[in-house]
C-alpha cells in the first residue's frame, strides 16, 4: 500500500471550513470509543460534555469565563505560529503576568482601605503590569533566538517550569497572607483590584470583553496593516519576505512580545477576575490548551474565538463528567490531544489530495 499526496493547485475554501469540523467529529468519535473502553456510556458522556454546559445560564457564563484566557492566549500565539515561530511557553508568560499583576494588588492592599492612596488606578496598573511582565518574559526566548540562534521551542518551554516555581515560591513565602492561617495564598484582593462583573453578582467578569476586543484587534492587524502582511508573508514565503526587506529579527521580537503580552494579560485577568488572590497554581494548563485553540481555529481570529468556546465547553464538560460519571479528568486532556492531531491531519486535506494506491511501497 502506498499513500500519495497530490498538491492542490488552489487551497480549497470549502475544505478550509469543513476540515476543522470533520476533525472535531472524528475526535468526538475516538473520544466516545475511549469512554466506552472505560466502561461508561458514550451517549451520556456526549450529553455531559457538549450539551449540558450549554443548557443553563450559569454554565453558559462559565463557558465564557473559561474561554477568556484560552482565546486571549491563542490570539497572541496565532501571530507567532503564522510567522512559523514556535512559542510554546505561553503557560509561563500567563503565570508571570498573573504574578506581577497580582503583586500590584498585594502591595497596595492595606493602603487603599486606609485611604492613603487613590484606588481607581490600581486595576489598570495591574493589567498593565501583567501584560508587560508577560511581554518581557516572552521576549527572553525571542532574544535568545535572534542573538544566539537558540531554539525558541526549548527555551520558551523551560521558562514555563521556572515561572511556575517562582510563583510557588513567592506565594508560599514573601507574598503569603500573614493573617491567612498559614495557607499558601496571598491576601484576597480588594474590590478595587478586581475586574468588575458584567452581570452584577455573577461570574461573568470584564476580562471576557478584553478577549473579544483582542479578537477584533487581531483581525484588524492581520488584514489591514503592513505588520500583519509581514507576519503572513514570513510564514508562507520567508525568502520573499527577506527580499522585500522585512527584518526577521524585528518580526521575531514583535510576535513574541505580542504573544507574551496577550498571555500575560490573560494571566492577570484570571487572577483579578476569576481567582481574586494569588495561589501557588493559577492555571490548569491554559497556556497549553491555547495551542490547540490556535490550531483548531486555523490561526484565524474568528476561528480562534469559536475554537476557544469549543475547548472551554469540553473542559467544563470534563469537570462535570468527573463528578457525574466518575470519568477521570485525564480523559479530557487525552481528548484534546486527539482533537489537535485530527485538526492537523485534516489540515493536510486542504493542501493535498490524498491517494491511497494498493501495491508495492515506494
Amino acid at each position, binding site marked *: 500500500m502506498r*499513500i*500519495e*499526496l497530490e*498538491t492542490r493547485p488552489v487551497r480549497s475554501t470549502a475544505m478550509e471550513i469543513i476540515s476543522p469540523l470533520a476533525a472535531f467529529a472524528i475526535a468526538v468519535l475516538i473520544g466516545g470509543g*475511549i469512554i466506552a473502553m*472505560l466502561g461508561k456510556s458514550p451517549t451520556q458522556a456526549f450529553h455531559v460534555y457538549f450539551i449540558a454546559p450549554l443548557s443553563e445560564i450559569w454554565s453558559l457564563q462559565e463557558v465564557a469565563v473559561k474561554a477568556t484566557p484560552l482565546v486571549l492566549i491563542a490570539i497572541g500565539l496565532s501571530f507567532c*505560529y503564522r510567522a512559523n515561530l*514556535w512559542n*510554546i511557553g505561553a503557560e509561563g508568560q500567563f503565570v508571570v503576568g498573573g504574578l506581577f499583576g497580582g503583586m500590584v494588588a498585594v502591595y497596595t492592599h492595606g493602603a487603599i482601605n486606609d485611604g492613603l492612596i487613590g484606588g481607581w488606578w490600581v486595576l489598570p496598573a495591574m493589567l498593565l503590569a501583567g501584560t508587560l511582565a508577560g511581554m518581557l518574559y516572552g521576549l527572553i526566548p525571542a532574544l*535568545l533566538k535572534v542573538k*544566539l*540562534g*537558540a*531554539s525558541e*521551542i*526549548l*527555551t520558551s*518551554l*523551560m*521558562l514555563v*517550569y*521556572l515561572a511556575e*516555581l*517562582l510563583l*510557588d*515560591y513567592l506565594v508560599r*513565602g514573601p507574598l503569603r497572607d500573614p493573617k491567612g492561617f498559614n495557607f499558601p495564598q496571598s491576601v484576597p484582593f480588594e474590590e478595587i483590584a478586581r475586574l468588575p462583573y458584567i452581570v452584577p453578582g455573577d461570574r461573568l467578569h470584564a476580562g471576557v470583553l478584553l478577549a473579544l476586543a483582542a479578537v477584533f484587534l487581531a483581525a484588524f492587524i492581520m488584514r489591514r496593516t503592513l505588520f500583519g502582511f509581514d507576519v503572513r508573508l514570513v510564514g508562507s514565503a520567508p525568502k520573499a519576505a527577506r527580499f522585500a526587506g522585512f527584518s526577521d529579527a524585528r518580526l521575531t521580537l514583535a510576535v513574541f512580545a505580542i504573544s507574551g503580552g496577550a498571555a500575560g494579560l490573560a494571566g492577570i485577568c484570571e487572577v483579578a477576575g476569576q481567582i481574586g488572590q494569588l495561589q501557588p497554581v493559577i492555571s490548569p494548563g491554559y497556556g*497549553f490548551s491555547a*495551542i*490547540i485553540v490556535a*490550531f483548531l481555529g486555523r490561526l484565524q481570529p474568528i476561528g480562534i474565538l469559536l475554537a476557544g468556546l469549543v475547548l472551554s465547553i469540553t473542559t467544563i464538560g470534563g469537570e462535570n463528567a468527573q463528578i457525574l460519571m466518575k470519568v*477521570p*479528568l*485525564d*480523559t*479530557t*486532556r*487525552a*481528548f*484534546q*490531544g*486527539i482533537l*489537535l*492531531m485530527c485538526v*492537523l*491531519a485534516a*489540515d*493536510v486535506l486542504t*493542501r*493535498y489530495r*490524498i491517494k491511497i494506491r494498493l501495491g508495492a*511501497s*515506494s
Partner: protein
Amino acid sequence: MSLQIFELVLFTILAAATPLVIAAIGELIVERAGVLNLGVEGMMICGAATGFAVAILTDSSEIGVLAGILAGMALAALFGLLTIFMAANQVATGLALTILGLGLSGLIGAQFIGLKRESLGHLYIPLLSDIPLIGKLVFSQDVFVYAGWALVVGTAWFLSRTRAGLTLRAVGENHASAHALGIPVRKIRFLAVLFGGACAGLAGAYLSLAYTPFWAPGMTAGRGWIALALVVFASWRPLLAFAGALLFGGATVLQLHAQAASIGLPGQLLTAVPYAATIIALIILSLRHRRGGAAPASLGVGFVPER
C-alpha cells in the same frame, strides 16, 4: 569513607542520567533522519504508565518493560503517520503527541497509583563487582543503565561506520537528493521515528520500574524535554549526548542532595536547577557555533515526493 560517598554520588548520577541518555539517543536518531519529534515527553510518560501497569498485571517487570517500549512505539507510529505520510506540521503534531501522551498516561495509570513494585535487580558479577569504585559503577548496575550504554555505543557506530547509518544521515541532510538516488526517504524516516518511540518508552519504563519505582502522574517532570535539549546540546552526536546526560544527571542529584541537606535555599530554587541548566546549556552551545551548523539540514522540513 570519602571514597564510598564519592562512589555513591557517581552511582546516583549514572542512574539519574540513564533515562535522559536513552530518550536522547532515540530522538537523536529521529533528528538525524530529518524529523523533529517534540512528543518525547508524551511517549516517555506513556511508557512509564504502561510499563508499570503491565508489570503489575502480569507480575513481570520484563514484560512491563516490553509493554513500555511498545507504548512509546505506538504513539511514535501515530506521529510518523501524520508527519511523514500526511506531511502534517512536525512541531504542532509533536506538541499534540505530548498533550495526548500526558492524558493517556493518566488514564492508564489511574488504577495503579500508590502501588509499589520491587525495582529491577542490579547485576552482580563475582569478583568484578567487588573491585573498589569501578566494580560498583561498571559491573553492578541495573539492565537499563547497560541498555543506555549499549545504545550510545551502538548508535555512534551505526551512524559513522555503517552504510545504513550513512543512508539515514543522507535522508536527514537532503531528502530531495536522497529521494533522487532512490532511497526510500519516508520509510527510513518512519523507522527512525519508531526507534525514537521505543527509546522514549524504554526511558519511561526505567522511571516507573527501576528509578522510583512506582507510578505517579506527571512523573517524567519534563525529562522528555530535557532529552530534546540534550540532542541539540550534543550537536547530534551520541557520545556527547551521553556526556551531556551525565551533566544533567549531576544537576538533578546535586539538587536532591542539597534539598536533603536543607542548606537554607528555597526548595523551588533547587528544583529549578535542571530547567535553568537546560537554558544555560543551550546558550553556551549557541555561543560556540552560532549558526547552528551541526543540525541536520532537512530537520523539521516535511517531505512530499514529486513524481
